[in-house]
């Protein structure tokens, strides 16, 4: 017992200082983080300075920045980055656009017939594993048995196209699948963003007879932008490192039409077993992803300062 008659906390009774007790609570998390994040990261960083093929049975050879320099000078890498950005920007752009429209409809038409069922169906693709969805769509696009080539044939009178086997259409076929899978996510974010607008502000806008664009500009955007941006950033990061969907559908082909960075990375590391180049590329990818994240953190910081005022 101390002066105020309260029992002392157990850690004090056992002679631990508050600081030590706090550390005791944090250490398990820190240890987990260190073992699964920090150590592999440092390992990766180290590997990126060496030439190392684990399958050759030769000791790693130190190259310094050699792996990076050859990556920077490799036109193929820049092409992959271009492909990745094309995929990412198109996917996020289309998904955001469609998501905004669908989200707005679902949000503004509360009494829409079948709204609940439609929402449930709409959100179902999101729960699939990307590899499963990819496999599924490979069948849908199959030039012999697929539904999509069949209807293209029926509607336009052209022979059934091999959409995934053609380097001009493969990217768009994959994109369409990604859009099918992730538009619901942006729809959900839109509904959440619009749901963040206080009821009285919406009512004031209707009493004030604001026009649609005025409502978008002065009511929906100011209240909804952070949730919507969060959705866009999450989608961007995710689209940037898409792997499962593409690996199941085209594995980067035909040629290198759908060869995004994550596919290249996998091939360098686990097909060619070129650990050094793979690691350097992984770090490079990580750097880009961190750049996206910091954009969001920047917006988030603005939001916090806004909330304080």
């Amino acid at each position, binding site marked *: 017992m101390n002066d105020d008659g309260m029992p002392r906390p157990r850690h004090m009774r056992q002679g631990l200082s508050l600081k030590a007790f706090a550390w005791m609570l944090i250490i398990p998390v820190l240890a987990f983080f260190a073992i699964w994040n920090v150590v592999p990261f440092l390992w990766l960083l180290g590997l990126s300075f060496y030439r190392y093929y684990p399958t050759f049975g030769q000791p790693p050879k130190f190259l310094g920045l050699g792996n990076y320099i050859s990556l920077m000078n490799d036109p193929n890498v820049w092409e992959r980055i271009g492909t990745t950005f094309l995929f990412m920007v198109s996917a996020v752009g289309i998904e955001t656009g469609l998501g905004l429209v669908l989200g707005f409809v679902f949000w503004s038409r509360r009494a829409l017939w079948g709204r609940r069922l439609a929402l449930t169906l709409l959100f179902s693709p999101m729960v699939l594993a990307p590899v499963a969805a990819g496999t599924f769509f490979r069948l849908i696009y199959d030039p012999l048995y697929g539904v999509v080539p069949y209807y293209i044939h029926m509607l336009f009178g052209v022979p059934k196209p091999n959409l995934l086997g053609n380097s001009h259409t493969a990217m768009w076929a994959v994109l369409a699948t990604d859009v099918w899978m992730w538009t619901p996510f942006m729809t959900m974010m839109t509904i959440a963003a619009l749901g963040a607008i*206080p009821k*009285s*502000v919406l*009512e*004031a806008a*209707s*009493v*004030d*007879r*604001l026009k649609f664009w*005025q409502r978008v500009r*002065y*009511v929906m955007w*100011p*209240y909804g932008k952070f949730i919507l941006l969060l959705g866009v950033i999450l989608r961007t990061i995710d689209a940037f490192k898409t792997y499962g969907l593409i690996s199941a559908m085209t594995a980067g082909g035909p040629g290198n039409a759908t060869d995004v960075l994550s596919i290249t990375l996998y091939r360098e590391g686990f097909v060619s077993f070129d650990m050094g180049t793979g690691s350097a590329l992984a770090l490079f990818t990580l750097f880009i992803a961190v750049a996206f994240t910091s954009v969001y953190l920047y917006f988030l910081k603005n939001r916090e300062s806004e909330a304080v*005022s």
Partner: protein
Amino acid sequence: MANVEFTNLVKQYGATTALKAVSGVFQDGLVTCMLGPSGCGKTTLLRTIAGLEQQDSGTIHFDGRAVEQLPVSARNVGMVFQAPVVYRGLSVFDNIALPMRRAQVSDSEIRKAVDEVLDLLDLGPLAAMVADGLNAGDRQKVAIARAVARRPRVLLLDEPLTNVSGHERAVLKRSLKRLLTHRRDTVVYVTHDQSEAMTLADVMVVMQNGVIMQQGAPRDLYEKPEDEFVGWFLGAPGMNFLYPAKERAEVWMRAEGLWEPDLRARMAGVRTMGSIGFRPEYVRVALTPQPGWSEAIVQHAALTTLGQILVTAQAGPTTVVAKHAGLPLLSQGSRVWLRVPSEHVHCFAPDGKRLDLDAAADDEAEPEPVGSRPMRRV
């Protein structure tokens, strides 16, 4: 501006009926304050007039034109909500101007209208500031300015002072009074604060359980309540009530010193009395024995914020609250003598409606002898 007339408005939320066939007229150019306890339907009535709620049945007319089927935007009403609403990122001026920015309205007209309300609400110095950075009181001023600037047919205010506190609130109340007096708009003002209603109202409406209990000048509602509820609800505290029908005979007799003899006679003649009410501020309190007055024992005395002394005293079986400036702070257990002047005694029928003693007594076959017996049970 317009007359607002509504007839037999019914609004149900699931099992509860918020409006039970409410009818009434809110007059052009007058400030009507709707007052009532939480859940009495006052806000629902306001929102139904605005079009934010759809009535289940009934009609609403603005100057004789039916509007009950029109959407909010076609009714041209101005509304101020409990929570101050400003459009984020816009200056005070632009906030007020935004609803007016339509093809038909020129910039100079907008500027003139906005400047006028800015001036009336003392917002001039803040015109260029970003509205969402202001304090709650100023944000509510902006919301009020926005609602009135475009001259809507009706101005609806839903507890506009509730979310504003302390000094800001007093300032806002004063500005609002000035604005409303100056503009002579048709205003419907919902509040649960009586002093607010008394300050602002030309006409006061008291609602309870989805029904309008009384509508009239504030003074009339206060001095001549048409219903027991109105007498109880208005005033701080409200009326004292005695329920002769429920009291036992001898118990009732002992409180009779409260009434003047002639009133006692007239009350005795009424067979169906529900309750007798009188306001605490009209109870006369004597510190020395007065012949015939009801003797009472002080239970509690306290100083109110308005500087009056609030006395709770036990007069026989009944508890009477009296409120006066200039009374000493009586100690518990001290004796006082009470009497209520006849003109301040209100009688109500068992259904709560006001009872005119003389008219009611006429219905009786023969008046009972003075003081011979207590009020009859119903």
